[in-house]
């Protein structure tokens, strides 16, 4: 292995500092990490997944199964990075994976000796029995086995980089910047279509980049790329991979904006996620070379023939001195010729019995020795290939004659090409099988927006690749509505053809059809030919089962190299043809994709929108501790110097009962219900009646779901003849609105009603406590005497020059009002109340104290209205009208919901000085505490009014159990309390205080 003095697409003026396992590599700008490794004589890059076999660079692109490394250190550390697609940068550090203590002496390699115990189905067979309850034991073993058999290690540090998302539309998306993709983009661009051309490499050209610099192919590439670069309507995205094709012709691209740098620069994201809506797309994703199968085909020094050619022509790295090229097709000859011309001693073994005479003559001219009808039976060598066993073979790939041993240092292999139909199958399902080429190909319909062009269609000649790309690009543009002229297709350059061969030999075997030594189908997951055989012997016939049993194709490379060979072996074993065995389904993403790119900015505080009350800033400035309530941030409590949550909420709740408190309840859902049939609408959606509600009044209401369970509750005020103002709980605001809209737009189209959310238009302050009336009378111009504004009435008024509506209603159980204020004035009114409240000893309170107050009153909230409770369960059945139908009125009467033993709402007075935990289970005083118990605790608090801990709960047959002492068991905290079952109306059950 050596770097040549001249040639390649590297910049010899720009040497870079790159290290692997602490050793410096020879690297230049333009190298990939794998090229730098090969140029520096690195033979072993990693140890294999299961058997810890030494592995080297196998490919030169995304299909690489072996050369996976830990890239970078610290928070940017990334595991399982393919060295073959990693562009080197100055300061690059990487280390080997899955080897301990180091690559050369890897203790895990002992697995190689025990391989017969680690074959297909190892987990399924091992982790059962032999003794009872052995699951726990095996789970412990698994920890060690997983450690030994594994991929790279991730980091637990937070990702320091940012990622962003873009949503774009285009006429034609061209996937792949090789010969077909370039001409497709050219034709579509000339026609005037808005084109996006995506190429995963850092440069356009595809396979042409593996042709020598200055060749006809390279000049062709430069000329086409230049024309494309001059088109304003063509956007070229390099370092960008189309990873997914979805419904409605939506494509996901991942652009690696900064991965070729040590760290992102100029505030750029690390990667960019593109969601592209394309009217038409041309898939020109090319094909991936397939390995030949034989014993020891995984040894360092074995690599794909065109990878060897790429390293030579693109990176000026000659991968060996004595090279054997083993193939079954014409295309590998080009690699052999180029390697021979570069100075290597090359022997080519062609599995076919006869080869075109012109090709043989050309080989002779290039100094390449060709042996037809020969194959490699096994590769040998410690650490690296040093010799191969070759033998004459028959048409089935079986050795027929004497085996000879030939020394070599590199084995370049090619068993043909597999079209990259991944994206097409993601979008349209299983590919079709083409008998002429014996390959799975896309089968697009004319109406499909996703077209295909070039080698992905297994096109045989370069001329056809180019003309097909051009024609498909022109067609895509036309279908997308661009009507310009595509002009003349660029002329092709000379290239080697890819003649189809339906009878390809995919592996070389002994006379009895076995491989000589371990022959790997799936290199990354260490799946051998013998594992496929074993699965067959054990009765696996479905290709999907075979895949999961052997794990072939399930590694990070998703079987890009292994799929066809595994299918071929299975077909052979079953005596079927490959299409009869079928193929598995490709799913996104095409390559491993950073979660960060999928997440974009939507993490941490940006995971979802945060909703803030119009008075939020005041709470923050006055030291409120905040809590999350759905998307809302709400004041939880307002601690006085050093106060804990418990001390604060008890103080705040007690204060509201003694003096006066205010709380920001702007988060309540608010819906304007307007129209001539508004009363009828309310009458249908609420369980109680609404036809008699007069203007100026409001009423509490409960609504059910269609299935008869309680959905929500709240008060609705009648502002005018046809104008109602509904409030919902904070949590259910969106659900209630969507439900109302559904009913009005589908089943109740005859009702002349419009519903609109006005949640954000109104700030709301609840004023509660014995001094509430005095305070509001001082700050407003309203007459709030109990005769003027009794409970469930409202008045309009002015506070601090702001128009407000004052609803008299109580959630706390105290004399209380809700003040509705246009949102922009809410803080001003709040501040006015605070200022004026000094003389009344006003204190703001948070959601924790609000909870304490409502539990004391026995009002239900989210923990009780949780989707499984009925009106009767919650003691609300008295609200249900009997003479009118309403949503849920029929299904709520199902006999099963009428069962008297159902859990019903009760109060619990906890004995002792410790409160119950919500979610604790309720059990009778005597007996076992097993199973689900007799019910559960839903809400819990300390009650300052009662001077004890109380809770709400749902208890089987609860109404009949008042006075009973039960156990409250918290299995999570392993704590048992005793409680007395009481009415849930703990405090002031007659409501004298709120009616005062």
């Amino acid at each position: 292995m050596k770097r040549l003095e001249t040639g390649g697409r590297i910049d010899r003026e720009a040497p870079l500092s790159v290290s692997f396992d602490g050793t410096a590599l020879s690297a230049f700008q333009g190298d990939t990490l794998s090229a730098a490794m090969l140029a520096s004589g690195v033979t072993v890059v990693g140890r294999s997944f299961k058997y810890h076999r030494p592995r080297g660079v196998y490919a030169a692109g995304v299909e690489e199964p072996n050369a996976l490394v830990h890239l970078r250190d610290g928070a940017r550390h990334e595991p399982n990075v393919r060295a073959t697609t990693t562009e080197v940068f100055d300061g690059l550090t990487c280390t080997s994976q899955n080897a301990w203590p180091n690559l050369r002496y890897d203790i895990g390699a002992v697995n190689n000796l025990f391989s017969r115990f680690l074959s297909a189905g190892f987990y399924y067979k091992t982790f059962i029995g032999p003794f009872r309850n052995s699951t726990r034991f095996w789970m412990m073993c698994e920890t060690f086995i997983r450690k030994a058999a594994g991929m790279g290690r991730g980091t637990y540090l937070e990702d320091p980089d940012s990622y962003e998302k873009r949503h774009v539309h285009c006429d034609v998306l061209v996937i792949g910047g090789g010969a077909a993709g370039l001409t497709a983009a050219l034709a579509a661009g000339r026609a005037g279509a808005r084109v996006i051309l995506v190429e995963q490499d850092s440069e356009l050209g595809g396979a042409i980049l593996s042709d020598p610099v200055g060749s006809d192919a390279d000049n062709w590439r430069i000329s086409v790329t230049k024309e494309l670069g001059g088109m304003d309507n063509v956007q070229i995205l390099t370092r960008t991979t189309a990873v997914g094709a979805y419904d409605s012709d939506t494509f996901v691209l991942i652009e690696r904006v900064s991965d070729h740098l040590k760290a992102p620069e100029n505030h750029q994201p690390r990667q960019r996620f593109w969601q592209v809506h394309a009217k038409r797309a041309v898939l020109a994703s090319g094909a991936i070379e397939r390995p030949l199968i034989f014993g020891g085909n995984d040894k360092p020094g074995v690599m794909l023939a065109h990878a060897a050619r790429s390293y030579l022509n693109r990176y000026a790295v000659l991968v060996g001195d004595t090279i054997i090229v083993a193939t079954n097709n014409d295309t590998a000859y080009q690699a052999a010729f180029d390697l021979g011309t570069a100075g290597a001693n090359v022997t080519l073994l062609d599995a076919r019995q006869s080869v075109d005479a012109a090709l043989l003559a050309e080989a002779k001219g290039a100094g390449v020795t060709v042996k037809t009808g020969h194959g490699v039976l096994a590769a040998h060598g410690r650490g690296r290939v040093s010799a191969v066993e070759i033998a004459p073979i028959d048409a089935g790939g079986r050795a027929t004659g004497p085996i000879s041993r030939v020394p070599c240092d590199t084995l370049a292999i090619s068993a043909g090409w597999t079209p990259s139909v991944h994206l097409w199958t993601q979008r349209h399902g299983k590919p079709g099988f083409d008998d002429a080429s014996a390959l799975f190909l896309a089968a697009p319909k004319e109406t499909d927006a996703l077209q295909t062009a070039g080698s992905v269609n297994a096109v045989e000649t370069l001329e056809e690749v180019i003309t097909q790309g051009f024609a498909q690009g022109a067609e895509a543009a036309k279908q997308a509505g661009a009507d310009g002229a595509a002009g003349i297709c660029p002329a092709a350059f000379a290239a080697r053809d890819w003649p189809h061969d339906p009878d390809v030999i995919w592996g070389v075997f002994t006379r009895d059809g076995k491989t000589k030594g371990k022959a790997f189908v799936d290199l990354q997951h260490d799946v051998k030919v013998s594992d496929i055989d074993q699965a067959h012997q054990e009765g696996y016939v479905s290709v999907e089962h075979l895949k999961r049993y052997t794990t072939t194709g399930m590694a990070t490379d998703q079987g890009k190299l292994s799929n066809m060979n595994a299918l071929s072996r299975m077909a052979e074993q079953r005596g079927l043809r490959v299409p009869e065995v079928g193929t598995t389904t490709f799913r996104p993403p095409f390559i491993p994709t950073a979660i960060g790119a999928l997440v974009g900015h939507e993490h941490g505080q940006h995971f979802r929108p945060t909703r803030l009350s119009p008075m939020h800033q005041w709470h923050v400035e006055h030291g409120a501790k905040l809590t999350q309530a759905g998307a809302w941030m709400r004041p939880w409590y307002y601690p006085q110097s050093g106060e804990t949550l418990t001390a604060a909420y008890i103080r705040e709740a007690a204060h509201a009962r003694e003096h006066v408190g205010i709380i920001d309840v702007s988060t309540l859902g608010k819906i304007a219900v307007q129209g001539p049939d508004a009363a009828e609408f309310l009458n249908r959606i609420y369980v109680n009646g609404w036809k008699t509600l007069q203007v100026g009044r409001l009423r509490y209401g409960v609504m059910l779901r269609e299935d008869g369970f309680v959905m929500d509750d709240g008060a609705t005020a009648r502002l005018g003849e046809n104008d109602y103002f509904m409030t919902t709980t904070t949590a259910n605001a969106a659900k209630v609105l969507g439900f109302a809209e559904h009913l009005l737009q589908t089943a109740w189209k005859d009702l002349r009603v419009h519903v609109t959310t006005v949640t954000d238009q109104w700030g709301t302050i609840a004023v509660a406590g014995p001094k509430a009336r005095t305070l509001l009378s001082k700050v407003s111009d309203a007459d709030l005497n109990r005769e003027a504004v009794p409970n469930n009435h409202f008045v309009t008024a002015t506070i601090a020059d702001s128009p407000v509506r004052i609803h008299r209603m109580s959630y706390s159980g105290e004399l209380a009002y809700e003040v509705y204020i246009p949102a922009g004035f809410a803080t001003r009114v709040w501040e006015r109340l605070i200022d004026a409240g000094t003389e009344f000893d006003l204190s703001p309170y948070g959601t924790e104290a609000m909870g304490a107050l409502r539990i004391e009153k026995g009002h239900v909230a989210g923990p009780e209205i949780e989707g499984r409770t009925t009106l009767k369960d919650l003691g609300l059945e008295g609200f249900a009208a009997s003479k009118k139908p309403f949503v849920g009125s029929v299904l709520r009467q199902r006999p099963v919901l009428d069962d008297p033993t159902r859990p019903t709402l009760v109060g619990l007075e906890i004995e002792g000085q410790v409160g119950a935990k919500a979610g604790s289970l309720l059990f009778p005083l005597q007996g076992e505490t097993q199973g689900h118990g007799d019910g559960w605790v839903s809400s819990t608090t300390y009650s300052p009014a009662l001077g004890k801990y109380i809770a709400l709960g749902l208890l089987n047959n609860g109404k009949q159990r008042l006075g009973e002492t039960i156990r409250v068991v918290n299995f999570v905290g392993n704590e048992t309390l005793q409680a007395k079952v009481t009415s849930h109306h703990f405090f002031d059950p007659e409501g004298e205080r709120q009616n005062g």
Partner: protein
Amino acid sequence: MIRIDCPICGLRTETEFTYGADATVTRPAMDETATQPWVDYVFNRDNPRGWHLEYWHHVQGCRQWLVLERNTLTHEVGSCRLAREVDHEAS
């Protein structure tokens, strides 16, 4: 990742919408007192293979409920109409 051609807002991406319900079932009339029609409406659903009618809600757009034709097998999307303009036999 389907796209829906909302009659009010035009062709919009799926993330603006939420799926609502099966649009082939008809809500019983308000004065229906028998249990079975309500059980059928709330619980009983066919699970069709192929073209189907679904209610989708343009929650992040015009807030209209839509009746969308969607193929459960291929995810193809067909016509999209305003629910208020689609007639059901019963109501």
